[in-house]
């Protein structure tokens, strides 16, 4: 599965999609779900919580390990995907459909400055060395 070209990415393996209303939707990448394996628990941030860029805000746990998810940009949480409470495995099935939370960014320019799919792929490749 390649990384969709219409998304932005972080070095900490989140994907970020800009919606028509200016909010962003956030999930973890294919590479991240592959590393973690079968997901068993997702704890999203509280709606309304103000986040700073790179702040830990969510935990995803696979059978194997727990991993932090970071806010890609500064802003406020507007929604959390409660479907993942009972079906965290959706992240494994389609990481780009199984979003974790949505934010209203403080600055749209911060989102534009994130990595594109090609730059993110270079990060993944460098981790694999």
């Amino acid at each position, binding site marked *: 599965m390649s990384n969709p070209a219409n998304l932005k990415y972080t070095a900490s393996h989140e994907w970020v999609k800009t919606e028509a209303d200016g909010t962003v939707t956030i999930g973890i990448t294919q590479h991240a779900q592959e590393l973690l394996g*079968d997901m068993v628990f997702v704890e999203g941030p509280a709606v309304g919580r103000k986040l700073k860029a790179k702040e830990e805000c969510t935990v995803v746990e696979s059978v194997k390990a727990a991993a932090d998810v970071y806010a890609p940009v500064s802003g406020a949480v507007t929604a959390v995907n409660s479907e993942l409470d009972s079906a965290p495995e959706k992240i494994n099935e389609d990481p780009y459909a199984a979003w974790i939370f949505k934010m209203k960014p403080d600055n749209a320019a911060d989102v534009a400055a994130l990595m594109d799919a090609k730059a993110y792929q270079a990060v993944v490749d460098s981790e694999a060395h």
Partner: protein
Amino acid sequence: MPLKQTPLNAAHRAMGAKMVDFGGWDMPVNYGSQIDEHHQVRNDSGMFDVSHMRVVDMKGVGVRDFLRYLLANNVDKLTISGKALYSCMLLENGGVIDDLIVYFMKEDWFRIVVNAGTADKDIAWMKQQAAQHAPELDITDHPELAMVAVQGPNARAKVWAALPGSQELTEKLVPFSAVEMGVMFIARTGYTGEDGFEIMIPAKAAPFFWASLAEKGVKPIGLGARDTLRLEAGMNLYGQDMDETVNPLESGLAWTVDLKSERDFIGKAALLANPPDHKLVGLVLQDRGVLRGHQQVQTTHGAGEITSGSFAPTLEKSIALARVPKEVQIGDTVQVSIRDKMLAAQVVKYPFARNGKGLI
């Protein structure tokens, strides 16, 4: 240092395994989904490469007497050829050097299987003790033997289908015993809570045997599912649930220590002199989250710590083994510190699952 490889390394890669560094060994952690592999073993059959574990043969006159002294469990329980016994090997202070399985083959031959990560230290200890107490014994380890565990309700039937002649020889084999079949050694033992075999086979023959099992529909299972299966089955993992800093009585292993007989063994005096103030219990998480090793536990009788924890696929709950003050009782509610929260967990009797079924 390059990672050590088992004779099945190429087979794992060909089957799409995700390989990890497991204590210096290049081993499969899964072949896709760890949870699917877990269910495969509980519901049907799966095979594990456990060739990194080490076989040690002890031969010679007086080997039984030596093992009576070396091991915390009593090899006098072994009277029928092939019968196996689970035991700890202790330091003088009662700390656990390793847990192992010892098979009685003949009066002058016992076979021991030890953990991979502790094998070298175990053998050095055995030889050091033998030099003092039984210098005539021959202690030889067999890194050239591969080991494959086939586990699950259909495991034995599939081994019989894959290995001509094995059914006649092993159909009547009672649990926790073994028999030789030519150059192979077939034991009705395992680390999953399911029926099945653990089979030792010369390294050269292992890939063909593995492929024969695969042909009969036995699926490869990685170390990830091996860990959740053994945790559900309430089986200790050396290095997590016990090590040299704790004794078996505070590790849920009192049932493997024979303190009743007159026999002296290494560590006995320390165990008798220091009754344990902690014990190992099972926990089931009541709140949402995942229990993990090293999380702190608060009880009304004092603090404890999780030694092994995970999501349990059979139960679809998070479970753990935890070392807690001995006053803690089954049914108590305790608090587990997970990140910035205190989550409720119930103290339960384990095993959590056996023979395909959850017990909680």
